[in-house]
């Protein structure tokens, strides 16, 4: 179900912040202070806040569902073990996502991306069918398939932008690269996505 969108003064639709998106809420900082004292209850609450976000981020980045649990656990283990090293110079979510990104790239080194199958085409038809569950499933398949054609670095930037609603500076901090590199990755990723999905969403062009 689509959410109602806010419209700003310039008539630009602005996607409301996803409730799962990082917010740097003060509550998280308070929890982290308790985690520094090895408070397991506080860590559980922090885990519950971050697990859905990280699972979503990692499943897009890794394209290996069976690795998500491992990398997510390793990420939260680093949070647990090194909470004391978080100095608060960035948002807590930026710190956690940066850990996850590094862990994911290491895991990917062990499990490289699959060889591209150019014949794979999940854009089944152009039938202008109703917005049925079947149609949604077809679109989801096409999106996931299109994401699979991107590099892991591009997938990370795309997901952090479109779903997690982060600005390019926060993303640059997470993936540890210059902001211009984030923009360039996003530019090429969008072009590829658009190319791949043009057969799925004929109303785009």
């Amino acid at each position, binding site marked *: *179900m*689509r959410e109602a969108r806010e419209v700003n003064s*310039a008539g*630009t*639709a*602005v*996607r409301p912040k*996803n409730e799962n998106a990082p917010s740097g809420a003060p509550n998280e900082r308070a929890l982290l202070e308790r985690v520094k004292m*090895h408070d*397991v209850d506080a*860590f*559980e609450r922090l*885990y*519950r806040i971050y*697990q*859905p976000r990280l*699972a*979503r981020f990692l*499943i897009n980045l890794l*394209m290996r*569902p*069976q690795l*998500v*649990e*491992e990398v997510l*656990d390793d990420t939260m*283990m680093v949070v*647990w*073990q090194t909470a004391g090293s978080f100095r608060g110079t960035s948002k807590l979510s930026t710190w956690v996502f940066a850990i996850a990104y590094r862990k994911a790239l290491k895991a990917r080194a062990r499990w490289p991306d*699959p060889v591209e*199958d150019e014949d*794979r085409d*999940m854009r089944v038809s152009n039938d202008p069918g109703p917005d049925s569950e079947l149609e949604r*499933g077809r*679109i*989801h*398949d096409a*999106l*996931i*398939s299109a994401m*699979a054609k991107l590099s892991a670095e591009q997938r990370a930037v795309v*997901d952090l*932008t*479109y*779903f997690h*609603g*982060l*600005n390019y500076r926060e993303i640059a901090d997470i993936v540890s690269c*210059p*902001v*211009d590199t984030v*923009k*360039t990755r*996003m*530019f090429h990723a*969008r072009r590829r996505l*658009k190319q791949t999905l043009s057969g799925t*969403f004929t109303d*785009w*062009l």
Partner: protein
Amino acid sequence: MPNPIQTEVSPHDAAEELLPWYATGQLEPDERALVEQHLSSCAHCRRQLAFERRMVDEFADLTPEIDTAWARLRQRIEPPRRTVARPSLWDRVAREAADFWQNLSRPAVAVLATLQLAIIGGAGAFVTLSQESYQALSSAPLPASANVIVMFGGDTTESEIRGLLQANNATLVGGPTPADAYLLEVPSQSRTAVLSHLRADDHVTLAQPIDGPQP
């Protein structure tokens, strides 16, 4: 690093690069003004902005069913692989916490039991429980037909459970496990709806899809 807005990059290229973050409302006021000024005179970027908005919507919509979408696509990307069993996050944390608080009398086993439930409850809507994670609940083999794992509140009566199963056309195929979880078989085409009904019921503390044994 040169700023592309101020140096050799053309206003068109600079604006087009920023469109994703314009669509998500994540630009600074000066960048936003730059983009809006350019949009007023560039049809290409207006079309591109429509693409950005569609992607934002589609990515938001992608979330609820990402697990089933992945299950389908995974078969096409690579054959399922077994992951090597490893201590769960909570086992590792509990072990460290137990060491840290070793002067306390709280038995580590109670911490582990609590955390085991916590990780099940925290599994979220995005990752379908795998057979491996199910087996963290029970050493018993996963019945071939099981496609839902469910846990009930401690005060739920047998007749209430029976009524819930009947109302959802669900069959009990396993359990209770040592963690008091039950394995259900529900019609695959209505699994999503059944999960929603179960989660909405006050007696249900956990309802998650599970993958059957992989070929």
